């Protein structure tokens, strides 16, 4: 094991941090808040390393000798990945916010001790997936995220439905990763090589079957229709903070690993683009239509998340199909804004759930009067998702339109039509949701139950407020963010 250690340093920090934090908490019986502070420290450390790493990208981007691990044919190699750094920086930032949020959110749960390490491990797995250069290693790290994430999903094990959700996630993801395992078999059978860099050797149909298996596995983890069925259950019943992380970062980041693997394994860019764009349409339609009649707030957000996955796939798909770098940039920008908005939406929904004990939309009618700030934040998130101007979502929409119209091709324009349709249909979901918060309910259930205006904890207000500000900021002044994304996009093009 030699090479540039700083490549794997963040992974080490995260995994090591997870154990250290857990041990400290167990040994000294630290409180939930303390543990969350410790986790924030770990994450902050990771963030610093990641940012430094990110700043170094221009130096190593075109140097194949920068790696960590053994350079032998079957050795495990970690390579720096610019896109991964970008995504992980967002992921870790959001991780910090949800950790802060959990400092209050989990305070009623005695089992907080394992919660934070699990988050750290999930992020470590994700980071590993981006940097790992070996298919088998990739599989292992995928399993790591799957297992930790399903543990997080089923965190409230006393609720039957949470268990069901966690179980569903575990089973489906495992099947997905098993398919990836099958893919590894096909690839290794033909080439005898599992490295993602360097010469691959024979390129026959078995390799392509392997690639198809990987495509399927990542699709499942990203929640591509028709493999989206776990999404509403999981996001709807996992702890809200976890839903934010999963929906905002984890599942969508799979779409960025997918091309790296698939293009390497013999799927052409056009094929990948076609796949992404076709299934993007399904995602957009299914997500926006099924969003309309949801009873549970977070289930509602999950379907909106399926639609957002579709938007992201549409942007990336155009990028591959037309070899349009700009569209890849659109994909990255969408990832950023969706992560921020989705996380905000889930966190705000979690605040409602935490204080009212319910995420039933009908029961939450008129809740805006009781928690005005939180209602404003959720409204900002939803309006942003709906693409209202001066919020982050609109800039994303504008970029998607620009990219699609730039291609001026019937396929892209047809998908754009679906995109427009979906965004109009989803308005029928977002707007009533925003309105209902402020609507005077005919049966003010919450008030009848003697529910009074709660003091929302600062631990929760801080991340929610920060994310709201960010949504508005990206909306009003997207320039720096677009510059950032364009930079990453160039690296992404270079590395693919």
């Amino acid at each position: 094991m030699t090479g540039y250690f700083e490549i794997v340093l963040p992974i080490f920090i995260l995994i090591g941090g997870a154990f250290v934090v857990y041990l400290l908490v167990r040994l000294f019986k630290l409180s939930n808040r303390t543990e969350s502070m410790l986790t924030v420290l770990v994450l902050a450390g990771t963030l610093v390393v990641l940012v430094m790493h990110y700043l170094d990208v221009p130096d190593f981007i075109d140097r194949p000798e920068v790696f960590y691990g053994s350079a032998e044919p079957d050795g495990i190699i970690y390579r720096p990945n610019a896109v991964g750094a970008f995504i992980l920086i967002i992921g870790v930032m959001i991780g910090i916010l949800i950790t802060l949020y959990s400092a209050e959110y989990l305070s009623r749960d005695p089992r907080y001790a394992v919660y934070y390490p699990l988050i750290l491990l999930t992020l470590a797995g994700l980071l590993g997936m981006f940097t790992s250069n070996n298919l088998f290693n990739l599989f292992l790290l995928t399993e790591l995220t799957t297992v930790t994430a399903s543990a997080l999903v089923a965190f409230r094990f006393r609720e039957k439905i949470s268990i069901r959700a966690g179980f569903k996630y575990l089973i489906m993801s495992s099947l997905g990763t098993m398919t990836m395992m099958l893919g590894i078999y096909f690839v290794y059978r033909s080439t005898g090589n599992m490295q993602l860099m360097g010469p691959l050797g024979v390129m026959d149909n078995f390799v392509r079957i392997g690639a198809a298996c990987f495509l399927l596995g990542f699709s499942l983890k990203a929640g591509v229709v028709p493999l989206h069925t776990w999404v509403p259950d999981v996001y709807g019943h996992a702890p809200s903070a976890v839903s934010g992380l999963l929906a905002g970062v984890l599942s969508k980041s799979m779409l960025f690993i997918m091309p790296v693997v698939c293009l390497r394994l013999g799927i052409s860019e056009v094929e990948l683009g076609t796949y992404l764009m076709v299934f993007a349409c399904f995602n957009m339609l299914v997500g926006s239509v099924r969003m309309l009649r949801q009873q549970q707030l977070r289930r509602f957000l999950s379907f909106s998340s399926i639609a957002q996955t579709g938007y992201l796939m549409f942007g990336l798909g155009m990028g591959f199909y037309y070899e349009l770098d700009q569209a890849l940039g659109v994909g990255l920008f969408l990832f950023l804004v969706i992560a921020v908005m989705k996380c905000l939406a889930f966190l705000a929904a979690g605040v409602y759930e935490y204080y009212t004990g319910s995420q039933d939309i009908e029961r939450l009618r008129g809740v805006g009067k009781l928690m005005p700030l939180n209602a404003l934040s959720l409204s900002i998130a939803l309006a942003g998702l709906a693409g209202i101007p001066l919020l982050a979502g609109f800039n994303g929409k504008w970029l998607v339109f620009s990219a699609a119209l730039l291609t001026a091709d019937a396929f892209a324009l047809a998908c754009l039509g679906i995109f427009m349709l979906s965004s109009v249909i989803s308005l029928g979901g977002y707007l009533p949701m925003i309105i209902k918060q402020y609507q005077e309910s005919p049966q003010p259930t919450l008030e009848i139950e003697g529910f009074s205006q709660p003091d929302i904890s600062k631990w929760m207000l801080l991340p929610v407020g920060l994310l709201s500000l960010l949504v508005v900021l990206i909306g009003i002044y997207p320039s720096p963010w677009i510059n950032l994304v364009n930079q990453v996009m160039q690296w992404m093009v270079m590395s693919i």
Partner: protein
Amino acid sequence: MNPYQILLSGITILPVIGVIILLVWRKATKTQAAIIGIISESFALVIPIVLLTTLRKEGVILFSVPWIPNMQISFSLELSWLSITFLLTEVLATLAAMIYSLGDKDGEKNSNTYYALLLLFSLGMSGTTLADDVFLFYIFWELMLIASVLLILGWGHGENRFRVALKYFIITHLGSLMVLVCLITLYVNFGTASLTELVLHASSLPINMQVFLTAFFIIGFCVKMAIFPFHIWLPDAHTVAPMPVTIILAAAMLSMGTFGVLRFPFTLLAFESIQPFAIWMMIGGLISEVYGALMALAEQEIKRIVAYSSVSQMGYILFGLGTLTLRGMQGAVMHVVYHAIVKALLFMVVGIIIAVTRERDIRNVGGLGSKLPILTVCAAIGVLGISGMPPLGIFNSEWMIFAGGFDSGVSIVLTVMTLIGSLLTLVYGLRFFGMVFFGVQKPETLPEKSPRALLVPTIAVTVFLIIEGLVPGPLLEWATLGLTGIFGGLL
């Protein structure tokens, strides 16, 4: 950057300051909030008037600061003769509505937010008329929509206001999306969002694409103009909205669609790409005119009658635009202004009728003529005005529109039908007037006295209508300058 350009930006910035004051000073009473609103809105009235002389000297005033440089998007405003006409109409309508709202019962709860939203609504419209950047245009365009939807949601009447607001938002948004497609097509094809630059290049696009863009633009803006069959949002939204909002919706917001048609397809694209749509616009205008009038004739709810008459009047405007002649379009622009005044007047009258009788069904109202003589005179002038009785304003614009119809040389029959169809306006206008003011008095005792605070702005608008009708010169000149600014010597 000279002081005039900075002054120009004040039209958009000063109302924002008003909004901030309103949002910060939560304890203001309704009157105080209204006064803040009126003061900040009147800046938007004074600044263009101050800029008139400069505009006359320079023809156009530009204000531009970079906003999102890597997307070639800037915060740029342009005051031209075309935009100043629409801008002043919109600001005056808003001011009238705000003054009217002082005596109105709506907006008593959360009056700060109410006036802040009214200001934002108006800001959206002034921004739409001024924006010189497609991105900025769309943002203002949506701001106008969102503010009005929020106003309907928060202060609307009736249980179904949520449904209505949703319908209004979604249908109008569909139109906006069509516009957005066109805007972005222009933007990506030339890599610039600035309209000043797009004007120079846009007509070099392939002609097929331009035809396509024109179709999308016109349909998209027709949704805003509430042309049949895209009018379905209008009657509900007008009925449910609080009265001042209805006034702004009907008097100002509808005409933004007209501005859009003039500003985008007509200004940017080649004349040849618009010509295929001329006859369809004329036919659409005719259908809308007749259809709206018929609906107004059949409708029983007072506000809806006046609301449907907007559908009819927008038909004239579309017809005028469709003639593609100077006179037709002058007529359309003038019709926008006159329609704004008359429609504001009629809605004010309707508001007073509703306030006095607490009835919305015209069958339950009657014989108010002897009780409310001043209102009767105002209503009579409004009804005569909308039916195109000279010398009240709408006659002038209808005359130009019909003349344009003949000038277009498309079909004499079509224009004659439109002309004779305008008789229908008289039919429903007189039905409305007769049912409300003649016959046995209903309800027998009026629950409320005639509110003076509502009557004063109504009389003021009536007087303004008569003056505007008698002195059409300046308006005609502005419309001419604005249109020749677009078409140059083409017409």
